[in-house]
Protein backbone atom coordinates (compact mmCIF):
# COMPACT_ATOMS: atom_id res chain seq x y z
CA UNK A 1 0.00 0.00 0.00
CA UNK A 2 1.61 3.21 -1.15
CA UNK A 3 -0.05 5.42 1.39
CA UNK A 4 1.93 8.50 0.44
CA UNK A 5 0.37 8.51 -3.03
CA UNK A 6 -2.00 11.40 -3.75
CA UNK A 7 -5.25 10.98 -5.71
CA UNK A 8 -5.06 11.70 -9.41
CA UNK A 9 -4.95 15.34 -10.42
CA UNK A 10 -4.38 16.39 -6.81
CA UNK A 11 -0.94 17.72 -6.04
CA UNK A 12 1.26 19.38 -3.45
CA UNK A 13 2.67 22.75 -4.34
CA UNK A 14 6.31 22.77 -3.26
CA UNK A 15 8.24 25.69 -1.72
CA UNK A 16 9.42 27.78 -4.68
CA UNK A 17 6.10 27.51 -6.54
CA UNK A 18 4.02 27.86 -3.37
CA UNK A 19 5.84 31.07 -2.50
CA UNK A 20 5.25 32.48 -5.96
CA UNK A 21 1.55 31.57 -5.89
CA UNK A 22 1.14 33.13 -2.45
CA UNK A 23 2.91 36.34 -3.52
CA UNK A 24 0.65 36.56 -6.57
CA UNK A 25 -2.41 35.90 -4.44
CA UNK A 26 -1.51 38.79 -2.12
CA UNK A 27 -0.67 41.04 -5.05
CA UNK A 28 -4.04 40.42 -6.68
CA UNK A 29 -5.99 40.83 -3.46
CA UNK A 30 -4.16 44.12 -2.83
CA UNK A 31 -5.01 45.22 -6.35
CA UNK A 32 -8.68 44.34 -5.82
CA UNK A 33 -8.64 46.11 -2.45
CA UNK A 34 -7.43 49.44 -3.83
CA UNK A 35 -10.15 49.21 -6.48
CA UNK A 36 -12.76 48.96 -3.75
CA UNK A 37 -13.43 45.22 -3.88
CA UNK A 38 -14.15 43.85 -0.43
CA UNK A 39 -12.63 40.51 0.51
CA UNK A 40 -14.97 37.72 1.64
CA UNK A 41 -14.20 34.19 2.83
CA UNK A 42 -17.11 31.89 1.89
CA UNK A 43 -17.21 28.39 3.44
CA UNK A 44 -15.51 25.36 1.88
CA UNK A 45 -18.82 23.51 1.78
CA UNK A 46 -22.48 24.26 1.99
CA UNK A 47 -25.82 22.70 1.07
CA UNK A 48 -26.00 21.64 -2.54
CA UNK A 49 -29.12 23.69 -3.21
CA UNK A 50 -27.39 26.97 -2.57
CA UNK A 51 -24.05 25.91 -4.02
CA UNK A 52 -25.31 25.17 -7.50
CA UNK A 53 -28.33 27.43 -7.61
CA UNK A 54 -28.75 29.07 -10.97
CA UNK A 55 -25.49 27.67 -12.24
CA UNK A 56 -26.88 24.61 -13.95
CA UNK A 57 -26.21 20.93 -14.30
CA UNK A 58 -22.53 21.09 -15.21
CA UNK A 59 -21.57 22.55 -11.86
CA UNK A 60 -23.65 19.89 -10.10
CA UNK A 61 -21.64 17.11 -11.76
CA UNK A 62 -18.38 18.92 -11.00
CA UNK A 63 -19.15 19.08 -7.26
CA UNK A 64 -17.92 16.58 -4.65
CA UNK A 65 -20.76 15.74 -2.29
CA UNK A 66 -21.04 14.64 1.33
CA UNK A 67 -24.00 14.02 3.62
CA UNK A 68 -24.29 16.44 6.54
CA UNK A 69 -24.27 14.29 9.71
CA UNK A 70 -26.26 16.95 11.56
CA UNK A 71 -29.18 17.30 9.18
CA UNK A 72 -28.94 14.44 6.71
CA UNK A 73 -28.93 16.95 3.89
CA UNK A 74 -26.60 16.79 0.95
CA UNK A 75 -23.67 19.17 1.06
CA UNK A 76 -21.18 19.98 -1.64
CA UNK A 77 -17.58 21.11 -1.55
CA UNK A 78 -17.55 24.29 -3.61
CA UNK A 79 -16.50 23.83 -7.22
CA UNK A 80 -16.86 27.54 -7.98
CA UNK A 81 -16.92 30.49 -5.60
CA UNK A 82 -18.93 32.81 -7.86
CA UNK A 83 -22.38 31.54 -6.73
CA UNK A 84 -21.19 31.90 -3.12
CA UNK A 85 -20.30 35.55 -3.69
CA UNK A 86 -23.69 36.05 -5.35
CA UNK A 87 -25.39 34.50 -2.32
CA UNK A 88 -23.48 36.78 0.03
CA UNK A 89 -24.46 39.82 -2.01
CA UNK A 90 -28.10 38.80 -2.37
CA UNK A 91 -28.74 37.77 1.20
CA UNK A 92 -26.22 38.95 3.72
CA UNK A 93 -25.14 42.39 2.66
CA UNK A 94 -28.47 43.62 1.34
CA UNK A 95 -26.94 46.76 -0.11
CA UNK A 96 -29.24 48.69 -2.39
CA UNK A 97 -26.45 50.21 -4.44
CA UNK A 98 -23.30 48.75 -5.92
CA UNK A 99 -21.38 46.05 -4.06
CA UNK A 100 -17.87 44.96 -5.04
CA UNK A 101 -16.62 41.65 -3.67
CA UNK A 102 -13.46 39.60 -4.15
CA UNK A 103 -12.40 36.18 -2.94
CA UNK A 104 -9.55 33.68 -3.14
CA UNK A 105 -9.54 30.04 -2.18
CA UNK A 106 -9.24 26.44 -3.26
CA UNK A 107 -12.19 24.84 -4.97
CA UNK A 108 -12.61 21.15 -5.80
CA UNK A 109 -13.77 19.66 -9.09
CA UNK A 110 -14.68 16.05 -9.68
CA UNK A 111 -12.89 16.11 -13.02
CA UNK A 112 -9.62 17.85 -13.83
CA UNK A 113 -9.95 20.96 -15.92
CA UNK A 114 -8.36 24.27 -16.75
CA UNK A 115 -4.80 25.11 -17.69
CA UNK A 116 -3.26 23.32 -14.73
CA UNK A 117 -5.39 20.22 -15.39
CA UNK A 118 -6.07 19.97 -11.69
CA UNK A 119 -9.03 18.97 -9.57
CA UNK A 120 -8.11 21.61 -7.02
CA UNK A 121 -7.90 25.01 -8.72
CA UNK A 122 -6.95 28.02 -6.62
CA UNK A 123 -9.71 30.37 -7.64
CA UNK A 124 -9.36 34.11 -7.26
CA UNK A 125 -11.88 36.56 -8.57
CA UNK A 126 -13.76 39.83 -8.35
CA UNK A 127 -17.49 40.45 -8.76
CA UNK A 128 -19.53 43.62 -9.09
CA UNK A 129 -23.22 43.63 -8.09
CA UNK A 130 -25.99 46.15 -8.48
CA UNK A 131 -25.12 47.87 -11.75
CA UNK A 132 -26.62 46.80 -15.06
CA UNK A 133 -24.86 49.20 -17.42
CA UNK A 134 -21.92 48.61 -19.70
CA UNK A 135 -19.72 50.67 -17.35
CA UNK A 136 -19.57 47.87 -14.79
CA UNK A 137 -18.66 45.33 -17.47
CA UNK A 138 -15.83 47.58 -18.56
CA UNK A 139 -14.63 48.12 -14.99
CA UNK A 140 -14.44 44.35 -14.47
CA UNK A 141 -12.60 43.81 -17.76
CA UNK A 142 -10.12 46.55 -16.95
CA UNK A 143 -9.51 45.04 -13.54
CA UNK A 144 -8.87 41.67 -15.17
CA UNK A 145 -6.30 43.18 -17.52
CA UNK A 146 -4.58 44.92 -14.61
CA UNK A 147 -4.59 41.66 -12.65
CA UNK A 148 -2.95 39.76 -15.50
CA UNK A 149 -0.42 42.54 -15.96
CA UNK A 150 0.35 42.42 -12.24
CA UNK A 151 1.06 38.72 -12.58
CA UNK A 152 3.58 39.58 -15.28
CA UNK A 153 1.67 38.42 -18.33
CA UNK A 154 1.99 40.59 -21.38
CA UNK A 155 0.33 40.26 -24.77
CA UNK A 156 -3.07 39.78 -23.19
CA UNK A 157 -5.93 38.92 -25.50
CA UNK A 158 -9.61 39.23 -24.58
CA UNK A 159 -12.25 37.32 -26.49
CA UNK A 160 -15.83 38.57 -26.15
CA UNK A 161 -19.24 37.16 -26.80
CA UNK A 162 -22.80 38.02 -25.88
CA UNK A 163 -25.20 35.23 -24.95
CA UNK A 164 -28.30 37.25 -25.89
CA UNK A 165 -27.57 36.94 -29.60
CA UNK A 166 -28.18 33.19 -29.50
CA UNK A 167 -30.72 33.54 -26.69
CA UNK A 168 -32.97 35.94 -28.58
CA UNK A 169 -32.84 33.79 -31.74
CA UNK A 170 -33.99 30.80 -29.69
CA UNK A 171 -36.73 32.80 -28.03
CA UNK A 172 -38.09 34.49 -31.13
CA UNK A 173 -38.41 31.25 -33.09
CA UNK A 174 -39.74 29.28 -30.10
CA UNK A 175 -37.19 26.50 -30.31
CA UNK A 176 -37.84 23.67 -27.85
CA UNK A 177 -35.44 22.80 -25.05
CA UNK A 178 -33.96 19.69 -26.67
CA UNK A 179 -33.16 21.46 -29.93
CA UNK A 180 -31.81 24.43 -27.98
CA UNK A 181 -29.44 22.09 -26.12
CA UNK A 182 -28.29 20.45 -29.37
CA UNK A 183 -27.78 23.80 -31.09
CA UNK A 184 -25.88 25.08 -28.08
CA UNK A 185 -23.49 22.12 -28.24
CA UNK A 186 -23.05 22.46 -32.00
CA UNK A 187 -22.34 26.19 -31.77
CA UNK A 188 -19.91 25.72 -28.89
CA UNK A 189 -17.78 23.57 -31.17
CA UNK A 190 -18.47 25.72 -34.26
CA UNK A 191 -19.79 22.56 -35.86
CA UNK A 192 -21.33 24.14 -38.92
CA UNK A 193 -22.40 20.83 -40.52
CA UNK A 194 -24.29 19.94 -37.34
CA UNK A 195 -25.97 23.37 -37.16
CA UNK A 196 -27.01 22.96 -40.78
CA UNK A 197 -28.51 19.55 -40.03
CA UNK A 198 -30.30 20.72 -36.87
CA UNK A 199 -31.85 23.84 -38.40
CA UNK A 200 -33.44 22.24 -41.49
CA UNK A 201 -36.95 22.66 -40.09
CA UNK A 202 -36.51 26.26 -38.87
CA UNK A 203 -37.56 29.40 -40.69
CA UNK A 204 -35.10 30.82 -43.16
CA UNK A 205 -34.05 33.91 -41.17
CA UNK A 206 -33.30 32.00 -37.98
CA UNK A 207 -31.50 29.24 -39.84
CA UNK A 208 -29.26 31.67 -41.71
CA UNK A 209 -28.55 33.60 -38.52
CA UNK A 210 -27.55 30.45 -36.62
CA UNK A 211 -25.33 29.31 -39.49
CA UNK A 212 -23.69 32.73 -39.57
CA UNK A 213 -22.96 32.52 -35.85
CA UNK A 214 -20.48 29.69 -36.46
CA UNK A 215 -18.44 32.00 -38.64
CA UNK A 216 -18.84 35.26 -36.76
CA UNK A 217 -15.54 35.14 -34.93
CA UNK A 218 -12.50 37.31 -35.42
CA UNK A 219 -11.40 40.89 -34.91
CA UNK A 220 -13.55 44.02 -34.65
CA UNK A 221 -14.62 43.77 -38.28
CA UNK A 222 -16.92 40.84 -37.52
CA UNK A 223 -19.19 43.15 -35.51
CA UNK A 224 -19.88 45.19 -38.63
CA UNK A 225 -20.53 41.95 -40.47
CA UNK A 226 -22.83 40.77 -37.68
CA UNK A 227 -24.91 43.95 -38.03
CA UNK A 228 -25.37 43.08 -41.72
CA UNK A 229 -26.11 39.37 -41.58
CA UNK A 230 -28.03 38.94 -38.32
CA UNK A 231 -31.71 39.93 -37.96
CA UNK A 232 -31.96 43.53 -36.77
CA UNK A 233 -34.07 42.78 -33.69
CA UNK A 234 -33.74 45.15 -30.72
CA UNK A 235 -32.12 42.45 -28.56
CA UNK A 236 -29.44 41.61 -31.13
CA UNK A 237 -28.79 45.25 -31.93
CA UNK A 238 -28.38 46.04 -28.24
CA UNK A 239 -25.99 43.12 -27.75
CA UNK A 240 -23.82 44.10 -30.71
CA UNK A 241 -23.82 47.75 -29.62
CA UNK A 242 -22.55 46.83 -26.18
CA UNK A 243 -19.79 44.69 -27.69
CA UNK A 244 -18.75 47.65 -29.80
CA UNK A 245 -18.56 49.87 -26.71
CA UNK A 246 -16.45 47.31 -24.89
CA UNK A 247 -14.14 47.05 -27.86
CA UNK A 248 -13.47 50.80 -27.77
CA UNK A 249 -12.81 50.78 -24.05
CA UNK A 250 -10.43 47.82 -24.03
CA UNK A 251 -8.49 48.92 -27.09
CA UNK A 252 -6.83 51.64 -25.04
CA UNK A 253 -5.54 49.26 -22.39
CA UNK A 254 -2.89 47.40 -24.30
CA UNK A 255 -4.86 44.19 -24.73
CA UNK A 256 -5.90 42.84 -28.11
CA UNK A 257 -9.56 42.07 -28.61
CA UNK A 258 -11.54 39.54 -30.60
CA UNK A 259 -15.17 38.52 -30.81
CA UNK A 260 -16.80 35.14 -31.12
CA UNK A 261 -20.58 35.15 -31.29
CA UNK A 262 -20.89 31.37 -31.13
CA UNK A 263 -19.10 31.28 -27.76
CA UNK A 264 -21.86 30.35 -25.32
CA UNK A 265 -19.94 29.24 -22.25
CA UNK A 266 -22.22 29.43 -19.24
CA UNK A 267 -25.18 30.18 -21.49
CA UNK A 268 -27.55 28.85 -18.85
CA UNK A 269 -26.66 31.43 -16.22
CA UNK A 270 -24.88 34.21 -18.09
CA UNK A 271 -27.11 37.02 -19.28
CA UNK A 272 -24.98 39.44 -21.26
CA UNK A 273 -21.39 39.98 -22.30
CA UNK A 274 -19.09 37.06 -21.55
CA UNK A 275 -15.34 37.09 -22.01
CA UNK A 276 -12.23 34.96 -21.76
CA UNK A 277 -8.61 36.06 -21.45
CA UNK A 278 -5.90 34.36 -23.45
CA UNK A 279 -2.16 34.98 -23.62
CA UNK A 280 0.77 33.74 -25.61
CA UNK A 281 2.17 30.47 -24.33
CA UNK A 282 -1.08 29.38 -22.68
CA UNK A 283 -3.00 26.49 -24.20
CA UNK A 284 -6.38 27.65 -22.96
CA UNK A 285 -8.19 30.57 -21.36
CA UNK A 286 -6.48 32.11 -18.31
CA UNK A 287 -9.53 33.79 -16.90
CA UNK A 288 -13.26 33.67 -17.55
CA UNK A 289 -15.94 36.16 -16.79
CA UNK A 290 -19.20 37.74 -17.76
CA UNK A 291 -22.57 39.06 -16.73
CA UNK A 292 -25.03 36.90 -14.76
CA UNK A 293 -27.94 39.08 -13.73
CA UNK A 294 -30.39 36.29 -12.96
CA UNK A 295 -28.36 34.19 -10.52
CA UNK A 296 -29.30 36.32 -7.49
CA UNK A 297 -32.97 35.61 -8.28
CA UNK A 298 -32.61 32.06 -7.02
CA UNK A 299 -31.38 33.51 -3.71
CA UNK A 300 -34.47 35.67 -3.53
CA UNK A 301 -33.08 38.91 -4.89
CA UNK A 302 -32.16 39.39 -8.54
CA UNK A 303 -29.23 41.76 -8.83
CA UNK A 304 -27.31 42.80 -11.89
CA UNK A 305 -23.93 41.07 -11.62
CA UNK A 306 -20.70 40.82 -13.54
CA UNK A 307 -17.27 39.52 -12.63
CA UNK A 308 -14.33 37.31 -13.48
CA UNK A 309 -12.22 34.65 -11.87
CA UNK A 310 -9.03 32.79 -12.66
CA UNK A 311 -7.10 29.78 -11.39
CA UNK A 312 -3.74 30.84 -9.96
CA UNK A 313 -2.33 27.34 -10.40
CA UNK A 314 -3.24 27.50 -14.06
CA UNK A 315 -1.84 30.98 -14.51
CA UNK A 316 1.59 30.03 -13.16
CA UNK A 317 1.64 26.85 -15.27
CA UNK A 318 3.06 28.64 -18.32
CA UNK A 319 5.42 30.95 -16.44
CA UNK A 320 9.10 29.96 -16.22
CA UNK A 321 9.88 27.70 -13.23
CA UNK A 322 9.74 29.59 -9.94
CA UNK A 323 13.08 30.51 -8.38
CA UNK A 324 13.66 29.90 -4.69
CA UNK A 325 14.13 32.94 -2.55
CA UNK A 326 17.86 33.11 -1.76
CA UNK A 327 18.78 33.38 1.90
CA UNK A 328 21.62 34.63 4.12
CA UNK A 329 23.18 32.24 6.61
CA UNK A 330 24.05 33.58 10.09
CA UNK A 331 26.46 31.68 12.35
CA UNK A 332 25.93 30.96 16.04
CA UNK A 333 27.14 33.93 18.06
CA UNK A 334 26.32 35.64 21.32
CA UNK A 335 27.28 39.03 19.86
CA UNK A 336 24.31 41.42 20.23
CA UNK A 337 25.52 43.27 17.12
CA UNK A 338 24.71 40.15 15.05
CA UNK A 339 21.16 40.06 16.36
CA UNK A 340 20.75 43.72 15.44
CA UNK A 341 22.13 43.12 11.97
CA UNK A 342 19.81 40.13 11.41
CA UNK A 343 16.78 42.14 12.50
CA UNK A 344 17.60 45.00 10.17
CA UNK A 345 18.12 42.62 7.22
CA UNK A 346 14.79 40.92 7.92
CA UNK A 347 13.08 44.29 8.13
CA UNK A 348 14.31 44.92 4.59
CA UNK A 349 12.60 41.71 3.54
CA UNK A 350 15.76 39.62 3.28
CA UNK A 351 15.66 36.00 4.37
CA UNK A 352 18.13 35.23 7.18
CA UNK A 353 18.52 31.68 8.47
CA UNK A 354 20.21 31.39 11.87
CA UNK A 355 22.47 28.44 12.58
CA UNK A 356 21.20 26.18 15.34
CA UNK A 357 24.62 24.78 16.23
CA UNK A 358 28.21 24.86 15.10
CA UNK A 359 27.92 21.87 12.77
CA UNK A 360 28.62 22.56 9.08
CA UNK A 361 25.31 23.18 7.34
CA UNK A 362 24.63 22.39 3.67
CA UNK A 363 24.16 25.95 2.42
CA UNK A 364 22.99 24.70 -0.98
CA UNK A 365 20.14 22.82 0.57
CA UNK A 366 19.21 25.87 2.66
CA UNK A 367 19.23 28.07 -0.47
CA UNK A 368 21.85 30.34 1.11
CA UNK A 369 24.05 32.10 -1.40
CA UNK A 370 25.30 34.61 1.17
CA UNK A 371 26.38 34.52 4.80
CA UNK A 372 27.13 36.89 7.64
CA UNK A 373 30.77 37.24 8.61
CA UNK A 374 32.46 39.30 11.27
CA UNK A 375 35.29 41.55 10.14
CA UNK A 376 36.38 45.19 10.52
CA UNK A 377 34.60 45.15 13.89
CA UNK A 378 31.17 44.61 12.28
CA UNK A 379 28.89 41.98 10.69
CA UNK A 380 28.82 41.95 6.90
CA UNK A 381 26.98 40.00 4.21
CA UNK A 382 29.42 38.16 1.97
CA UNK A 383 28.83 35.85 -0.97
CA UNK A 384 29.25 32.17 -0.36
CA UNK A 385 32.02 30.83 -2.54
CA UNK A 386 30.71 27.72 -4.27
CA UNK A 387 33.16 25.00 -5.19
Amino acid at each position, binding site marked *: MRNWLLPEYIEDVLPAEALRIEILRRKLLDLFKVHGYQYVIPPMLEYMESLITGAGHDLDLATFKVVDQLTGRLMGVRADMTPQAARIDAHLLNHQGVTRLCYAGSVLRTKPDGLALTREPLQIGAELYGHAGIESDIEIQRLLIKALQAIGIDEI*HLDFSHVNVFGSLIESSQIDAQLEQDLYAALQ*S*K*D*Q*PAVAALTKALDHTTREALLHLTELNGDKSILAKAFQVLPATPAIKKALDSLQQVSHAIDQLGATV*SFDLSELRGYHYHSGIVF*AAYAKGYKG*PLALGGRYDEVGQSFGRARPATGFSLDLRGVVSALPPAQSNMAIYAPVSADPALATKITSLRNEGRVVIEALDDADADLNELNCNQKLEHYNSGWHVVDVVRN
Partner: protein
Amino acid sequence: MITIALSKGRIFEETAPLLAAAGIHAAEDPESSRKLIIETNRPDVRLIIVRATDVPTYVQYGAADLGIAGKDVLDEHGGDGLYQPIDLQIAKCKMMVAVRDDFDYFGSIRSGARLKVVTKYVKTAREHFAAKGMHVDLIKLYGSMELGPLVGLADVIVDLVSTGGTLRANKLKAVEEVGDISSRLVVNQASLKLNRDKLQPIMDAFQTAIAKNK
Protein backbone atom coordinates in the same frame (compact mmCIF):
# COMPACT_ATOMS: atom_id res chain seq x y z
CA MET B 1 4.75 27.37 -35.44
CA ILE B 2 1.50 25.70 -36.53
CA THR B 3 1.28 21.99 -35.72
CA ILE B 4 -1.20 19.78 -37.56
CA ALA B 5 -1.99 16.36 -36.10
CA LEU B 6 -3.16 13.57 -38.36
CA SER B 7 -2.93 9.83 -38.76
CA LYS B 8 -1.18 7.73 -41.40
CA GLY B 9 -2.99 5.83 -44.11
CA ARG B 10 -6.30 6.82 -45.61
CA ILE B 11 -6.66 10.09 -43.69
CA PHE B 12 -3.18 11.28 -44.63
CA GLU B 13 -3.63 10.33 -48.28
CA GLU B 14 -6.95 12.12 -48.58
CA THR B 15 -5.80 15.16 -46.60
CA ALA B 16 -2.68 15.73 -48.69
CA PRO B 17 -4.59 17.40 -51.58
CA LEU B 18 -6.31 19.73 -49.09
CA LEU B 19 -2.99 20.64 -47.51
CA ALA B 20 -1.61 21.23 -51.00
CA ALA B 21 -4.50 23.62 -51.67
CA ALA B 22 -3.35 25.56 -48.60
CA GLY B 23 0.21 25.56 -49.96
CA ILE B 24 1.47 22.94 -47.51
CA HIS B 25 3.48 19.98 -48.78
CA ALA B 26 4.96 17.32 -46.48
CA ALA B 27 8.73 17.04 -46.83
CA GLU B 28 8.54 13.28 -46.33
CA ASP B 29 6.01 10.53 -46.83
CA PRO B 30 4.88 9.36 -43.38
CA GLU B 31 4.22 5.87 -44.79
CA SER B 32 7.89 5.35 -45.49
CA SER B 33 9.42 7.66 -42.90
CA ARG B 34 9.67 6.60 -39.29
CA LYS B 35 9.72 10.17 -38.08
CA LEU B 36 6.76 11.30 -36.00
CA ILE B 37 7.29 14.98 -36.72
CA ILE B 38 7.27 15.75 -40.43
CA GLU B 39 8.49 19.10 -41.67
CA THR B 40 6.74 20.82 -44.56
CA ASN B 41 7.77 23.25 -47.27
CA ARG B 42 6.62 26.00 -44.92
CA PRO B 43 9.01 26.62 -42.04
CA ASP B 44 6.11 27.63 -39.79
CA VAL B 45 4.01 24.51 -40.36
CA ARG B 46 4.75 20.96 -39.28
CA LEU B 47 2.80 17.73 -39.22
CA ILE B 48 2.74 15.26 -36.38
CA ILE B 49 1.77 11.68 -37.09
CA VAL B 50 -0.35 10.18 -34.31
CA ARG B 51 -2.91 7.41 -33.91
CA ALA B 52 -6.29 8.42 -35.28
CA THR B 53 -7.96 8.07 -31.87
CA ASP B 54 -5.34 10.36 -30.30
CA VAL B 55 -5.82 13.31 -32.68
CA PRO B 56 -8.56 15.04 -30.60
CA THR B 57 -6.47 14.68 -27.43
CA TYR B 58 -3.41 16.33 -28.99
CA VAL B 59 -5.53 19.22 -30.22
CA GLN B 60 -7.57 19.55 -27.02
CA TYR B 61 -4.47 20.09 -24.90
CA GLY B 62 -2.87 22.41 -27.43
CA ALA B 63 -0.06 20.03 -28.41
CA ALA B 64 -1.35 20.56 -31.95
CA ASP B 65 -3.21 23.58 -33.31
CA LEU B 66 -5.13 21.72 -36.00
CA GLY B 67 -6.02 18.09 -36.46
CA ILE B 68 -7.81 15.82 -38.88
CA ALA B 69 -10.07 13.38 -37.09
CA GLY B 70 -12.90 11.09 -38.10
CA LYS B 71 -16.36 11.92 -36.76
CA ASP B 72 -16.33 8.47 -35.17
CA VAL B 73 -13.25 9.35 -33.13
CA LEU B 74 -14.57 12.81 -32.25
CA ASP B 75 -17.87 11.45 -30.99
CA GLU B 76 -16.04 9.01 -28.74
CA HIS B 77 -13.74 11.75 -27.47
CA GLY B 78 -16.67 14.05 -26.77
CA GLY B 79 -15.12 17.09 -28.45
CA ASP B 80 -14.40 18.98 -25.23
CA GLY B 81 -12.22 22.02 -25.81
CA LEU B 82 -12.32 21.63 -29.58
CA TYR B 83 -13.77 23.49 -32.49
CA GLN B 84 -14.82 21.27 -35.39
CA PRO B 85 -15.82 23.78 -38.04
CA ILE B 86 -15.26 21.94 -41.32
CA ASP B 87 -16.50 18.63 -42.69
CA LEU B 88 -13.62 17.68 -44.96
CA GLN B 89 -15.76 15.16 -46.88
CA ILE B 90 -12.92 12.63 -46.82
CA ALA B 91 -12.54 9.10 -45.44
CA LYS B 92 -16.31 8.67 -45.72
CA CYS B 93 -18.08 5.61 -44.37
CA LYS B 94 -21.00 4.71 -42.14
CA MET B 95 -21.33 3.66 -38.52
CA MET B 96 -23.62 0.62 -38.61
CA VAL B 97 -25.24 -1.94 -36.38
CA ALA B 98 -24.57 -5.45 -37.76
CA VAL B 99 -25.65 -8.93 -36.71
CA ARG B 100 -25.19 -12.53 -37.84
CA ASP B 101 -27.00 -13.36 -41.09
CA ASP B 102 -29.51 -15.55 -39.25
CA PHE B 103 -30.14 -13.19 -36.30
CA ASP B 104 -33.55 -11.46 -36.09
CA TYR B 105 -32.46 -8.02 -34.84
CA PHE B 106 -35.79 -6.20 -35.04
CA GLY B 107 -37.64 -9.21 -33.63
CA SER B 108 -35.36 -9.21 -30.58
CA ILE B 109 -35.92 -5.51 -30.06
CA ARG B 110 -39.68 -5.99 -30.20
CA SER B 111 -39.50 -8.78 -27.65
CA GLY B 112 -37.54 -6.44 -25.38
CA ALA B 113 -34.41 -8.56 -25.33
CA ARG B 114 -31.35 -7.11 -23.64
CA LEU B 115 -28.72 -7.36 -26.33
CA LYS B 116 -24.99 -7.77 -25.91
CA VAL B 117 -23.01 -5.38 -28.09
CA VAL B 118 -19.33 -5.50 -28.96
CA THR B 119 -17.80 -2.29 -30.25
CA LYS B 120 -14.79 -0.04 -30.25
CA TYR B 121 -17.18 2.93 -30.08
CA VAL B 122 -18.72 2.52 -26.64
CA LYS B 123 -20.05 6.06 -26.26
CA THR B 124 -21.56 6.19 -29.75
CA ALA B 125 -23.19 2.78 -29.26
CA ARG B 126 -24.51 3.68 -25.80
CA GLU B 127 -26.13 6.84 -27.12
CA HIS B 128 -27.54 5.15 -30.20
CA PHE B 129 -29.31 2.42 -28.25
CA ALA B 130 -30.40 4.80 -25.48
CA ALA B 131 -32.05 7.02 -28.10
CA LYS B 132 -33.95 3.95 -29.31
CA GLY B 133 -35.02 3.17 -25.76
CA MET B 134 -33.12 -0.13 -25.68
CA HIS B 135 -31.17 -1.68 -22.85
CA VAL B 136 -27.87 -3.13 -24.00
CA ASP B 137 -24.71 -4.47 -22.41
CA LEU B 138 -21.59 -3.06 -24.00
CA ILE B 139 -18.34 -4.94 -24.38
CA LYS B 140 -15.38 -2.89 -25.52
CA LEU B 141 -13.02 -4.48 -28.02
CA TYR B 142 -10.09 -2.93 -29.83
CA GLY B 143 -10.45 -4.74 -33.15
CA SER B 144 -11.96 -7.65 -35.09
CA MET B 145 -15.41 -6.84 -33.76
CA GLU B 146 -16.90 -9.05 -36.49
CA LEU B 147 -15.82 -12.07 -34.49
CA GLY B 148 -18.08 -11.17 -31.55
CA PRO B 149 -21.39 -12.54 -32.85
CA LEU B 150 -19.66 -15.53 -34.51
CA VAL B 151 -18.16 -16.90 -31.31
CA GLY B 152 -21.05 -16.05 -29.02
CA LEU B 153 -19.44 -13.06 -27.33
CA ALA B 154 -22.28 -10.76 -28.37
CA ASP B 155 -25.47 -10.49 -30.42
CA VAL B 156 -24.66 -7.24 -32.17
CA ILE B 157 -21.69 -5.21 -33.32
CA VAL B 158 -21.42 -1.46 -33.87
CA ASP B 159 -18.65 -0.65 -36.29
CA LEU B 160 -17.58 1.38 -39.28
CA VAL B 161 -18.62 -0.04 -42.61
CA SER B 162 -17.26 1.28 -45.90
CA THR B 163 -17.80 -1.46 -48.51
CA GLY B 164 -19.39 -4.14 -46.38
CA GLY B 165 -16.82 -6.67 -47.60
CA THR B 166 -15.67 -7.72 -44.14
CA LEU B 167 -19.24 -8.16 -42.97
CA ARG B 168 -20.11 -10.40 -45.94
CA ALA B 169 -16.93 -12.46 -45.59
CA ASN B 170 -17.93 -13.20 -41.99
CA LYS B 171 -21.60 -13.90 -42.69
CA LEU B 172 -22.82 -10.75 -41.00
CA LYS B 173 -25.36 -8.21 -42.22
CA ALA B 174 -25.76 -4.51 -41.50
CA VAL B 175 -29.21 -3.88 -40.06
CA GLU B 176 -29.24 -0.28 -38.94
CA GLU B 177 -27.42 2.95 -39.62
CA VAL B 178 -26.02 4.86 -36.65
CA GLY B 179 -24.68 7.77 -38.65
CA ASP B 180 -22.59 9.06 -41.50
CA ILE B 181 -18.89 9.36 -40.82
CA SER B 182 -16.35 11.59 -42.49
CA SER B 183 -13.28 13.43 -41.33
CA ARG B 184 -13.41 16.79 -39.63
CA LEU B 185 -10.94 19.57 -39.20
CA VAL B 186 -10.53 20.16 -35.47
CA VAL B 187 -9.04 23.32 -34.03
CA ASN B 188 -7.64 24.10 -30.60
CA GLN B 189 -9.77 26.87 -29.10
CA ALA B 190 -6.99 29.02 -27.65
CA SER B 191 -4.98 28.65 -30.82
CA LEU B 192 -7.81 29.97 -32.96
CA LYS B 193 -8.00 33.07 -30.73
CA LEU B 194 -4.26 33.71 -30.68
CA ASN B 195 -3.10 32.48 -34.11
CA ARG B 196 -6.09 33.36 -36.22
CA ASP B 197 -3.95 35.15 -38.83
CA LYS B 198 -2.17 31.87 -39.55
CA LEU B 199 -5.03 29.40 -39.09
CA GLN B 200 -7.78 31.21 -40.95
CA PRO B 201 -6.03 31.10 -44.40
CA ILE B 202 -5.50 27.34 -44.00
CA MET B 203 -9.15 26.86 -43.05
CA ASP B 204 -10.33 29.04 -45.93
CA ALA B 205 -8.17 27.11 -48.40
CA PHE B 206 -9.67 23.83 -47.14
CA GLN B 207 -13.20 25.22 -47.53
CA THR B 208 -12.52 26.35 -51.09
CA ALA B 209 -10.94 23.04 -52.07
CA ILE B 210 -13.87 21.08 -50.61
CA ALA B 211 -16.42 23.26 -52.40
CA LYS B 212 -14.57 22.62 -55.67
CA ASN B 213 -14.62 18.84 -55.18
CA LYS B 214 -18.36 18.72 -54.65
